[in-house]
């Protein structure tokens, strides 16, 4: 990794992270050599479909998926402190304190039989020597900050008395309660209505500006990413297949899988096609992934070189932060990615757009 920024700015550094799980069927390589970094006040989006390893990556940073069946390799350092090999006690200080996480489904992520206030207070008091009353006061502030009306009163409610959007706000308030330096948001808006989604994203955006926390936004939805991400890493089959700034990814995507993702975004500014062109085929089995490029079986532009493993490399010297894992030449890519005048992925069996 090139240390492009000074250490004061660099928050998280992940280098060649590999996570595998032993299962009944064999070893699943959920994350297969992932490297990225997050700076203060920056939003890194990790985008990919299910089974791409994006959630596992986020969980691994907090040690939430540690189990006797799991193996972790590589390095992940937060301000120079190693996370993957941290002891349980060290990890406890990190969890909720330095790194906080917002989960996908606010309906199930809160304990149904505990009052909202107690759940926030529990987190605050795990990290700071405050009395219950002090912690409650802080909870009220937090709830007001994330836009929950009548906060003091609502702290005594149970999760089922809240709407989905309100619960997600509670989750965010909880995550922010100990001023974390890194916030991992795992599909924070997937389970919410479209209108609420936008509000929540705006709030996240505002909060990272105020607190200068780094944010990892894990999502399958490029539309969400466009709103607040600074940089994007696209994951497929346990690997990052393309990484770059928001503009680079949206306007000059290099990997065919990214084209496919971009082609299937719903856009308000254009007529909706009869049916969104989904990428044909299924994600690879992580038990026995294809050799070489993992996207090869679904890629219409596959050629003989694809059986070799492509590395995540800078392909265009003009864009030093933009790298991808595809053997195609840059000029071929720029030609092949245009389908019907838009960026997209051609059908595998159809004629390749020439």
């Amino acid at each position, binding site marked *: 990794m090139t240390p492009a920024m000074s250490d004061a700015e660099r928050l998280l550094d992940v280098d060649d992270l590999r*996570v595998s799980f032993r*299962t009944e*069927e064999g070893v*699943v390589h959920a994350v297969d050599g992932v490297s990225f970094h997050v700076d203060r006040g920056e939003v890194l989006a990790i985008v990919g479909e299910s*089974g791409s390893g994006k*959630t596992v990556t986020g*969980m691994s940073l907090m040690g939430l998926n540690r*189990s006797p069946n799991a193996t972790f390799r590589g390095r992940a350092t937060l301000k120079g402190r190693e996370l993957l090999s941290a002891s349980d006690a060290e990890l406890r200080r990190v969890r909720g304190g330095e790194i906080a996480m917002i989960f996908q489904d606010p309906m199930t992520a809160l304990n149904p039989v505990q009052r909202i206030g107690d759940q926030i207070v529990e987190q605050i008091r795990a990290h700071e020597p405050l009395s219950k009353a002090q912690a409650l006061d802080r909870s009220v502030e937090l709830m007001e900050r994330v836009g929950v009306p009548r906060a003091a009163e609502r702290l005594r409610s149970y999760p089922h008395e809240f709407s989905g959007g309100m619960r997600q706000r509670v989750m965010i308030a909880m995550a922010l309660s100990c001023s974390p330096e890194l916030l991992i948001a795992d599909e924070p808006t997937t389970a919410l209505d479209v209108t609420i989604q936008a509000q929540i994203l705006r709030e996240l955006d505002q909060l990272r500006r105020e607190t200068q926390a780094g944010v990892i936004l894990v999502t*399958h939805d490029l539309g969400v990413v466009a709103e607040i991400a600074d940089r994007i890493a696209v994951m497929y089959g346990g690997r990052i297949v393309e990484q770059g700034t928001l503009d680079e990814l949206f306007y000059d995507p290099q990997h065919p899988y990214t084209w496919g993702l971009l082609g299937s975004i719903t856009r308000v500014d254009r007529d909706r096609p009869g049916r969104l062109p989904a990428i044909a085929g299924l994600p690879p089995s992580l038990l026995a992934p294809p050799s070489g490029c993992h996207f090869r079986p679904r890629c219409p532009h596959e050629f003989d070189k694809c059986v070799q493993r492509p590395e995540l490399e800078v392909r265009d010297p003009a864009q030093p932060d933009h790298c991808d894992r595809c053997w195609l030449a840059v000029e071929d890519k720029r030609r092949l990615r245009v389908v019907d005048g838009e960026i997209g992925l051609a059908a595998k069996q159809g004629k390749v757009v020439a």
Partner: protein
Amino acid sequence: MAIDPATPDTTGTGAIREAGGDVPAAVGPDGRPAAGIGPYRLGLRRLRRNKVALAFGALFLVIVVLCLAAPLYADHVAHTGPNDNHVTEQVTVRGEQKDVVSPAGLPIGPTWQGRFLLGADQNGRDLAVRLLYGGRNSLQVGFVATLITMVLATIVGICAGYFRGAVDGVLARILDLIWAYPVVLLGIALGTSLALGGITIGPLELSGNSLYVPAAIIGIVYIPYVAKPIRGQVLGLREKEFVDAARVQGASSLHIMSREILPNVASTLIVFLPLMVANAILLEAALSYLGAGIQPPNPSWGTMISDGIRLIPSAIHLTFVPGAMLVLAVLGINVFGDGVRDALDPRARVRISAAREEKISDEAMEATVEH
């Protein structure tokens, strides 16, 4: 899990929670159905790997075979029947003449030879012969009761879940009613009143000491424990697309219930089957012990234990022998049943967190891509 004869509600709910109304299809590590392998093949493969469950299943099978061979043993080894008295006789044990039943009324203990292998009871009957014949009765009652429970519960559960409305209302209330009775109390109530007079249902007439009376009682008592989870599962299944598809194609209700719904609840039934056999055998023993089950002189493990307990402490073997056999048989089928459940329900095993986490986003992904 076994349902204790003494405590219906417990195990009812417990068993159902454990056995689950919902046995999912085989799931691969990525949360998708494992390609190419049906859930039953996969279950069988898991079961085959579970040596403990197989060993206990084999134990149960051996006991069943032994009990079926009871007449052979009686005729060719022991040379006596299950109800033949030998109170006044003597038997030669290692060259020594011994009373089968001592003048004080104490029966002989195990001789470890052909005649009176395991000793005699207070009536001078060969304990080993009675043990095997008793086992035949206990097992027969257990199997017949289970058959009654499974068949009726499947019909009731599927009909209630499928038709809903008034049919469901009536059936579900009846199930609730049986459910509200403590199992043993209902068994006793039926047992005491039927054992005296027998019962006539249309052309079918059962006398009080017929084996089918306790079998029918036990079978009926356990119906709600199977029918309720089946009903719940069917309520969910009938909303599924494949049922709609069949209905649109003009399939009759009977066809949909038997061809579309039944196969989908089959795994639940399979999980319940060994469980219910074990519970039926236990309840038979409890009812027989109380005198409301199999009627003397018919032997059964329960009646034999009941007879034996009266002679504690002087002739403990009269309790131990049938007791051990009963526990071994029930334990065998319980451990095997536990293995079957684990094999068909992967959730019961140690979970792999990654599979679950990715599965959630999987569904979210599908939802967005499809629309």
